[in-house]
């Protein structure tokens, strides 16, 4: 049986160690292999794509361009419908624009803007465990995840997302989308690779069900 290939993009911003470890735990004994994507040609034969991201929106976009991955990633997930899971900034770049320092164009797959939490006396970053409220379950994120706590660390959130793309919300001062989904494309604002058993289950669901 031909093994399915999970492509983990190493954008160069943030380390991919913990997500790599989580994927390997999940796919142990199963017909999958993990491939680290560093250049366009690494995308060959990939059946699932995971992009973890830390730090700034602009840095991630820049790094994808520098490694010549940007266009190919966009083609694979929006034209060839390869399942995609974006984590943290890997989710945020699905937006139309990011507004960190200056306005920067995103992949524009799910309309909306990435903006900073703004409220006097609010502790930023939103750091720690917070619950997700499932609004619109799908095959990766089912109702069993409703109200489960997952680990967040971010200062920016996805604003003005159309309701139909919001799988779950989380409250930090106000409600914001913590999981988004459009067809084969999934994004999570939190870190499943740091979210203990709940997070491991999410990674497993994406790998086996998306």
């Amino acid at each position: 049986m031909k093994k399915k290939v999970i492509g983990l993009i190493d954008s160069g911003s943030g380390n991919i160690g913990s997500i790599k470890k989580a994927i390997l735990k999940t796919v142990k004994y199963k017909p999958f292999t993990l491939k680290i994507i560093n250049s366009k040609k690494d995308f060959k034969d990939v059946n699932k794509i995971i992009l973890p991201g830390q730090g700034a929106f602009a840095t991630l976009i820049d790094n994808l361009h520098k490694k010549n991955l940007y266009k190919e990633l966009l083609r694979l997930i929006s034209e060839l419908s390869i399942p995609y899971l974006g984590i943290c900034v890997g989710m945020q770049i699905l937006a139309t624009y990011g507004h960190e320092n200056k306005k920067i164009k995103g992949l524009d797959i799910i309309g909306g803007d990435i903006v900073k939490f703004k409220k006097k006396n609010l502790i930023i970053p939103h750091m720690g465990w917070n619950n997700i409220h499932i609004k619109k379950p799908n095959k990766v994120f089912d109702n069993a995840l409703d109200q489960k706590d997952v680990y967040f660390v971010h200062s920016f959130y996805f604003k003005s997302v159309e309701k139909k793309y919001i799988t779950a919300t989380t409250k930090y001062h106000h409600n914001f989308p913590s999981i988004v989904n459009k067809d084969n494309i999934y994004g999570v604002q939190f870190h499943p690779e740091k979210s203990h058993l709940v997070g491991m289950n999410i990674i497993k669901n994406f790998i086996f069900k998306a």
Partner: protein
Amino acid sequence: MLKVRIIPCLDIIKNKVVKGINFKNIRTLGDPVTLAKKYSDTGADEICMLDITASHEKRKTFLKTVEAIAKVIDIPLTVGGGISDIKDITTLLNAGADKVSINTTAVLKPKLIKLASIKHGSQCIVVAIDGKRFGKQMLIMIKGGREKTNKNVVSWAKIVQNLGAGELLVTSMDTDGIQTGYDQEMLRAINKEVSIPVIASGGVGELRHFKEGYQTKSTGLLAASVFHTSKFSIQQVKKYLEKEGIPVRIS
């Protein structure tokens, strides 16, 4: 709702978890990997580990311990002690740390905070503040508490926030190790002036101390020996806090 984080801390010398009183009288309490895995499995929200000797020749052993711990836990790991430049930070992140905690070097070379937060993102740069009272003043101590500086804890906290620190780990040397509770005065003074998350550290001996720590507006509550000696389990602390109406993650 955001939950308060319960963070067991492993002070490490030569691959052993140790505890000192007021940074002195060190005794051994267990194996770091075994303890870290136990805490992760029983509901700790993060793990913190510190190389408290931070001697150059022991560094390789410490890095191996970091790698071994990162492998067995699925929650965030903060690593501190002995960081002197950006290379040390990159090495620790590659070894499996999610955040690094900088103390002495932040005081000696504040530019490192800025550099590191630009390179790796503020979210992984923790500045550790060891504070101690001298009369009415609360001053920053460095080099594991051996050296006094003229920096006031609150003004220093504001400076490092502006330099790009994503979080503060505040230990009061007046309460550390003596189990009489967190230094609420110091924590409140800092939390009033900064808008980044603060981890309270130093002094937990009773369950109510966790509640008192939360009331200072700190979002992380760190403790060491009460967990290592099994005086309290993580679940016991969380059940207590939940009963007190404080949001915790019950896994």
